[in-house]
C-alpha cells in the first residue's frame, strides 16, 4: 500500500486576514505545500487582495504580485516570458476568484489558454463577488440569494461551466478540488506542476459570510458538495481524457443546500430540479469518463 503524505513545509504564515472559515485560505496553504517556494503568484482583485495582508506584510513565503482585475492571465504570461528569456524556472500561478475566472478576466484567460501559456490558473470559486459583499457572478448557482439577486427574485440562470469551457480550449490539464479532500487537492497541484502548458484548477471555496453558514462548517460543506454530486472531483486532460477521482455517496442535495442561508428560500420543487440537474450532469461526466477508458 502506498502511503500518501502531505508535505510538512509551511509556505503560508498564520496572521493572514481571511474571514474565519474561509476555504480559500485553507486552499492556499495546501497549494503552496504542493508547489513549494519556487512559485510566483499573481493575484487580481479578489478576496486574496485583502487576505494576503496590507503593505508591507504578506502571508505567503513566495513572491506575489497584485494586479488589476481582468488581467491576471496576461500578467502571468509576462512573468513566464521574463523567466524564459532569463532561463529561470518557477511555477507561475494565478490565484483568483470566480469574478476573474468566470467574468472580468474570462477573455484574458481564454487568450492565455489558446496560447497554452505555461501557468497554473487557480480559481477559488466562492460563487459570487464576496470581497465586495456578496453580489452575483456568473459562477453563482441558480436560485441562490446574493445582494444583487434578492430572495424575491433569486438568480435565474445556471452557473457557467468553467471546466467544460476550458476543456473546449484543449488545455493539457483541468481539475476540480475542494479542501475536504486535501490529498486529492495536493495530488492535483503536484501533477499540474509537472505539466507544461495551461493548467486550470477549479476549487469550490465555501464562504461562511456569503453563503450564510457557521464558519466551523467549511470542510463539511465542501465534503457535502462532493458527496451530493453537486461538485464532482474530476480531471480533464487535453479536453478529452476525463477521470473521475471520487464517486459521490449520493447524499440528498438538501443536505448541502439546507445548511446555507443563501438557499433558505428554496422550495421542494427547487430541490427536485437541483437533484435532476445534478444527475444529468453526472451522467454526462460519466459518459465522457468512459470514452477514453481503453
Amino acid at each position: 500500500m502506498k502511503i500518501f503524505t502531505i508535505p510538512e513545509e509551511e509556505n503560508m504564515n498564520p496572521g493572514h486576514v481571511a474571514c474565519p472559515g474561509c476555504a480559500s485560505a485553507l486552499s492556499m496553504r495546501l497549494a503552496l505545500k504542493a508547489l513549494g517556494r519556487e512559485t510566483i503568484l499573481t493575484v487580481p482583485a479578489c478576496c486574496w487582495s485583502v487576505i494576503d495582508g496590507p503593505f508591507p506584510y504578506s502571508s505567503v513565503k513566495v513572491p506575489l504580485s497584485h494586479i488589476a482585475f481582468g488581467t491576471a492571465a496576461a500578467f502571468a504570461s509576462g512573468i513566464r516570458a521574463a523567466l524564459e528569456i532569463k532561463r529561470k524556472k518557477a511555477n507561475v500561478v494565478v490565484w483568483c476568484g470566480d469574478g476573474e475566472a468566470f467574468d472580468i478576466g474570462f477573455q484574458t484567460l481564454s487568450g492565455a489558454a489558446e496560447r497554452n501559456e505555461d501557468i497554473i490558473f487557480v480559481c477559488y470559486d466562492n460563487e459570487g463577488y464576496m470581497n465586495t459583499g456578496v453580489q452575483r457572478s456568473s459562477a453563482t448557482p441558480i436560485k441562490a440569494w446574493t445582494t444583487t439577486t434578492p430572495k424575491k427574485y433569486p438568480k435565474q440562470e445556471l452557473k457557467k461551466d468553467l471546466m467544460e469551457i476550458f476543456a473546449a480550449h484543449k488545455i493539457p490539464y483541468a481539475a476540480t478540488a475542494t479542501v475536504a479532500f486535501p490529498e486529492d487537492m495536493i495530488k492535483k497541484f503536484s501533477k499540474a506542476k509537472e505539466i507544461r502548458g495551461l493548467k486550470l484548477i477549479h476549487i469550490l471555496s465555501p464562504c461562511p459570510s456569503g453563503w450564510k453558514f457557521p464558519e466551523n462548517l467549511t470542510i463539511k460543506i465542501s465534503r457535502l458538495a462532493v458527496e451530493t454530486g453537486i461538485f464532482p472531483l474530476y480531471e480533464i486532460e487535453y479536453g478529452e481524457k476525463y477521470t473521475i477521482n471520487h464517486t459521490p455517496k449520493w447524499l440528498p442535495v438538501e443536505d448541502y443546500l439546507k445548511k446555507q442561508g443563501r438557499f433558505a428560500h428554496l422550495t421542494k420543487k427547487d430541490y427536485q430540479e437541483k437533484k435532476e440537474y445534478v444527475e444529468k450532469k453526472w451522467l454526462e461526466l460519466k459518459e465522457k469518463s468512459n470514452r477514453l477508458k481503453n
Partner: protein
Amino acid sequence: MKKLLTGNYAASYGAILSRAEVISAYPITPQTQIVEKLSTMVAEGKLDAEFINVESERSALAVCMGASATGARAFTATSAQGLALMHELLHWAAGARLPLVLVNVNRAMAPGWTVWCDENDSLSQRDTGWIQLYCESNQEVLDTVIQAYKIAEKTMLPVMICMDGIFLSHTQEVVDLPEQEKVDRFLSPYKPPFSLDTSSPHALGSLTPPHVYFEFRYKLQQAMDEAQAEIEKTGKEFGNTFGRDYGLLDEYLLNEAEIIIVALGTVCGTCRVAIDRLNEKGNKVGMLRIRTFRPLPKKKIIESLKDVKKVIIIDRNISYGHHGILHEEIKSAFYRKLNIPLFGFIAGLGGRDITPEDIEQMVNYTLKHEESDTDILWWGVNK
C-alpha cells in the same frame, strides 16, 4: 547605416537596438507595422526576445508589466482606442514603478471611425504618471526609444513615446541606424532594483492604507521632477555618442523672436517652413517644440518665452468644455510668472492637414490682434 524608414519601422528598430526582451502588442492601425516587424525579427531569430500575441491591448500591457516586474526589459506599442483600453493599467504601471516603454502612434478617437492623426489619445492620458515624449521625425522616434529605456530604468517611471499617425508612422524618411555596439555601450542591460524573485519573496501592490498610500504618490511626483534632469542628461549623452542632441524642449529661432509658436508633434516641422518664409518677409517668429510633455518643464518654458510679445499655441487636440490641452498647460506654467497674450489655435483634428500657409495666416492673425478674440481660435473648421 542610413536607411529609408517609416516611423513605425523606426520605432521597431529602436526596440530591437535596445534589446527589448519581452514584446507584446495588439494590432491597431496605424501602429500595426511596429509589431509586425518585431514579431518577424523574433521569429527569424534576429532578436532574442519573447513575442507574445495577445487578445487585447489591455492584455498586451499586462504581459509587459508582468515581464517588467520579473526584471525583463519590455516593449509595447499601440494607438488611440488601444491606448484608451490600456487606461487603467497605465495608472497601474506607473504606480508600480515599472520602467516600460510604449510607443503610441497618435490617432484621433472614434466615433466616427478614423485612422488619422490627432493627439487627444495620448494627451488625455497625461495624469497617469507616465513620462510623455513627443517626436517630430522618424530619426527622433528611433533615438527616443533608446533614450527612453535609459530614462525609464533610471527614474523607474514608464515612458510613452508619441508619434503622429500617418504623418510619421507611414511616411518614409532617411534614418541613421546606430550601430548595436554603440547602443550597447550607451544602454546597459536592465538591472531591476526589485522584482518577482523566488530567492527574495515580496508582495507587490498590496492593500495600501491611507497612512502609506499618500507617500507613494509623493514619491511618484518626486521621480517625475527628477526625470527632467534625467531626460536632459540622457539627451546630451546621446548626442555625445551618436551626434544628435536632444533636450526637454526644442527651440527654433527663439532669439529675437517677437512671436513664438508653441506646439508638439509633426506640426512643428510645418512650422519651421512657415517661420522661414515669415522671417524672410521681415517678421520675427520662432518656435518652441514641447518634446517633453510629462514632466512639463515649466521653468524652461518660462525661460524660453519670457522676452516674447505674443505666444501662439497650436493644439491638434481639445479638452471639451475648456480649450486646447497644450494651451492650458502653457497658461498654467505662466501663472504669476509671465503676462503675455496667448493665442490658442485648434487645428488639424482627425488628421486634417495643417499647411505652412495655415501657420502663416495664424501668425498674421496674431500680428493684427492685441489679444485673442476668443478662448479657442478654431482654424479651418466649417462652423
